[in-house]
C-alpha cells in the first residue's frame, strides 16, 4: 500500500518546473519586500544619466539618472499586482458563475452564458480607453477592466468542468445520501474543477501582465513616474537611438523581467495541466 502512495508522490516535475517556481518566488518576494529592503529610491533622479551597470547601480540608470534595479523591482510590484489581482478577481467571479451555471443548467445558465458572450464580443481596447479616459489612469481601474475581461475565460472552463464532473457517479451518490445542492456544489464539484481552472489561472496571469505591458505601450497604464515593467519598456522605446545604443540596458532589464515571468507562469500552468490530465486518466 505504501508503495502505491510513494508512486503517486514521485510525479516527476521536470527541472524546468522547479526553476520556474524559483523565479516566481524571487520576483514575488522582492516585489513584496521592496519598501523594506535597502533599495535606492526608484524616483530619485541623479546626474548619472544612462549609466551602464556598475557596483553603484546594479542595472545601470535611465535617462533621468534613476536607478534601474530598484525601478525594475518596483515595477514588478505594479505588474505582478495587476496580473495576480485581476486574475484572482476574474477567477472568483467567473469560476463561481460557471459552477452555478453548469450545475443548475436552467434559466441561470442561459443568463450567465449570454453575459459571458457579451463580454467576449465587446472590444477590449475600446472599453479600456473609455474607462481610463473617464476615470483616469489609476491602478484600480486597470485591474478592474482586465478582471472584467477575464471573467468569460474562467466562466467557460469552470462551466465545462462542472458539466463533466456532474456526470460522475459520486455526485449521484452524494444525492442519494441526502446531500443538499449547496453542499454538493462546494464540497464535491469545487475541489474537482479546481485543477483545470487553476492551471488556466497561471496562464491568465501571464496574459494579464502582458496586457498591462500593452497598455503601457499605448500610454494607458499607470502614470509615470510610477514604474511598471510595461512603462519602463515603453519609456525606453521612446529614447533616441543614440541613447539606446549607449545604454540598451534600459529596455533589456524590464523586457527580461516580463519574458522570464510570463515564461515561468505559462510553464507552471502547462505542467499543472499535464499533471491533472495524468491523474484523471489514471482513474
Amino acid at each position, binding site marked *: 500500500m505504501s*508503495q502505491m502512495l510513494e508512486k503517486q508522490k514521485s510525479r*516527476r516535475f521536470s527541472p524546468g518546473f522547479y526553476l520556474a517556481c524559483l523565479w516566481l518566488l524571487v520576483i514575488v518576494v522582492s516585489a513584496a519586500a521592496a519598501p523594506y529592503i535597502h533599495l535606492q529610491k526608484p524616483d530619485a533622479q541623479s546626474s548619472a544619466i544612462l549609466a551602464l551597470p556598475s557596483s553603484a547601480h546594479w542595472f545601470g540608470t535611465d535617462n533621468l539618472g534613476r536607478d534601474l534595479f530598484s525601478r525594475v523591482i518596483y515595477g514588478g510590484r505594479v505588474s505582478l499586482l495587476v496580473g495576480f489581482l485581476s486574475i484572482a478577481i476574474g477567477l472568483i467571479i467567473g469560476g463561481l458563475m460557471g459552477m452555478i451555471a453548469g450545475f443548475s443548467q436552467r434559466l441561470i445558465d442561459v443568463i450567465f452564458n449570454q453575459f459571458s458572450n457579451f463580454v467576449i464580443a465587446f472590444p477590449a481596447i475600446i472599453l479600456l480607453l473609455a474607462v481610463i479616459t473617464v476615470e483616469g489612469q489609476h491602478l484600480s481601474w486597470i485591474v478592474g477592466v482586465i478582471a472584467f475581461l477575464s471573467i468569460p475565460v474562467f466562466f467557460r472552463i469552470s462551466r465545462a468542468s462542472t458539466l463533466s464532473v456532474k456526470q460522475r457517479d459520486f455526485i449521484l451518490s452524494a444525492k442519494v445520501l441526502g446531500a443538499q445542492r449547496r453542499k454538493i456544489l462546494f464540497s464535491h464539484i469545487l475541489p474537482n474543477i479546481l485543477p483545470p481552472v487553476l492551471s488556466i489561472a497561471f496562464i491568465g496571469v501571464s496574459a494579464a501582465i502582458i496586457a498591462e505591458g500593452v497598455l503601457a505601450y499605448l500610454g494607458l497604464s499607470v502614470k509615470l513616474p510610477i514604474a511598471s515593467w510595461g512603462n519602463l519598456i515603453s519609456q525606453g522605446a521612446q529614447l533616441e537611438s543614440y541613447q539606446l545604443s549607449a545604454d540598451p540596458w534600459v529596455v533589456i532589464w524590464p523586457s527580461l523581467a516580463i519574458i522570464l515571468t510570463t515564461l515561468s507562469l505559462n510553464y507552471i500552468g502547462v505542467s499543472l495541466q499535464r499533471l491533472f490530465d495524468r491523474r484523471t486518466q489514471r482513474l
Partner: protein
Amino acid sequence: MTAIKVLNKEFATELTDPILCIENLSVKIKTPEKKILPVLTDINLDVPKSKILGVVGESGSGKTMLAKTILGLNRSQNYEISGKVIFNGINLLEISAKELRKIRGSQISMIFQDPLSALNPVMKVGKQITEAILTHLDVSKSEATEQTFELLRSVGIPDPEKRFHWYPHQLSGGQRQRILIALALACGPVMLLADEPTTGLDATLRRQIIELIAREQIQRDMSVILISHDLATISQISDYVAVMYGGKIVELAPTKTIFTHPKMPYTSALLEAIPKINSDTKLKSIKGSPPNLEDLNRGCPFAPRCDVAQPVCFKINPPIFFDEDPSHKYSCFFPIGSKEYDIASEINEYKLANEISFESPLSENSQLNKQDNELVKTSEQLNNPDIEPTSDEVFSDE
C-alpha cells in the same frame, strides 16, 4: 506417489504441429515514473494448429499483452521484450515493421475488445472491410465488394447490401462486434487472436458470437487464440485452455481436464469462485487481490493468495511439470490431487489454527525448513537439463 517428470522450461506439444511457438518471452514495461514492471515473464507456449486455445486470466495476468506482443503492437521504447515468437519459421519479434504489416491482417489477425473504438467512426463499415481486402489480396474492387457481402452474410448481418453503407454508430453493439469479426476474417488469416470478443455483450449475444467464431474456425481451418477473463465463454469452444496469473502461464491443459481435474490451486479456486446457477453452495472466494505488478515476489505469483502455499513457493518460481498426461502442464509444487497437496494443506491448516504466519521463515531446526532446503537444491539441479531427479530425491522427507 506419482512419478513426476520434470522438464526444463520447454513447452513442446507432442500432439499437433504448432502454428506459433513462443519461447521464453518476457515483456517489461517502463512506466512514466521510471519503474520497470514485468508484464510477462518467461512465457513458453505452443499454439496448436487448427485448434482453439483459450487464454484465461484476471487483471494483471498479462493476457492482453501476450496478444499485443504476438502482433508486434508494442514495439515502442517503453517496452523491453526478450524471447522469440516464431510463426511459420519467422521470429515475429525480429522482422521489420514492413514485413510485420504484411503478416498482420492477412495471416494473423486480431479481434479487439471494444468494437466502437476499433472501427473507424467516419468510414462506412463495408468500406473498412473492402479496404482490408484490397490491401492484402490481389483482387479487383468489385470482387472485394462481393467478398464483403459474403462475409457480412456469414457473420450474421441481415441485409448485407444495405448495411454495407452504414456507419459504425448506426449499428448495435452486437452488430459492431460481428463487423469486427468480418474484418478480422476478411483476408483469410491462418491464425486469429480474439481479445475479449464478448465483453460488454449480453449473455444471449455472447453465445451467438462465440458460436460464430467456432463455426468460422471449423470452416476456415484456422488456429484461434481466444483471450478472456470469463472461463465460461472460453470453455464453450476451446480445445485447450491456458491459465495465466501475474504474467506467467500457470496451467495448460485440454478444456475438459481443466474443469474436471485442475492441478493448479489458482485454477481450482477460480472455478469455485464462479457462481453457478443451479447450485446453492457458498462461493469460495480467493483472499487478497489480483497481483500488483510492482511487488511481484520472486516465487510463484499466486503464493500470497494460495491456501496451500509453503515458504518455498515464495522463494522459487515453480518450473513446469507434467504428469502421465503430457498435454496437461502446470507450474506448481503442490498440485491438487497429489500427496504434496494434502500435506501442504494440512500444514497450512495447522498454521492457521495456531496463528503462525504463512510467510515468516520458521526456525532453523524445524522440519519444514529442512524440507525447504531440499527443494531449493532440487530446483537448482533442474536448470541443468541432463539431470532428472528421481521422485525420491525430490521429496525425501516422506
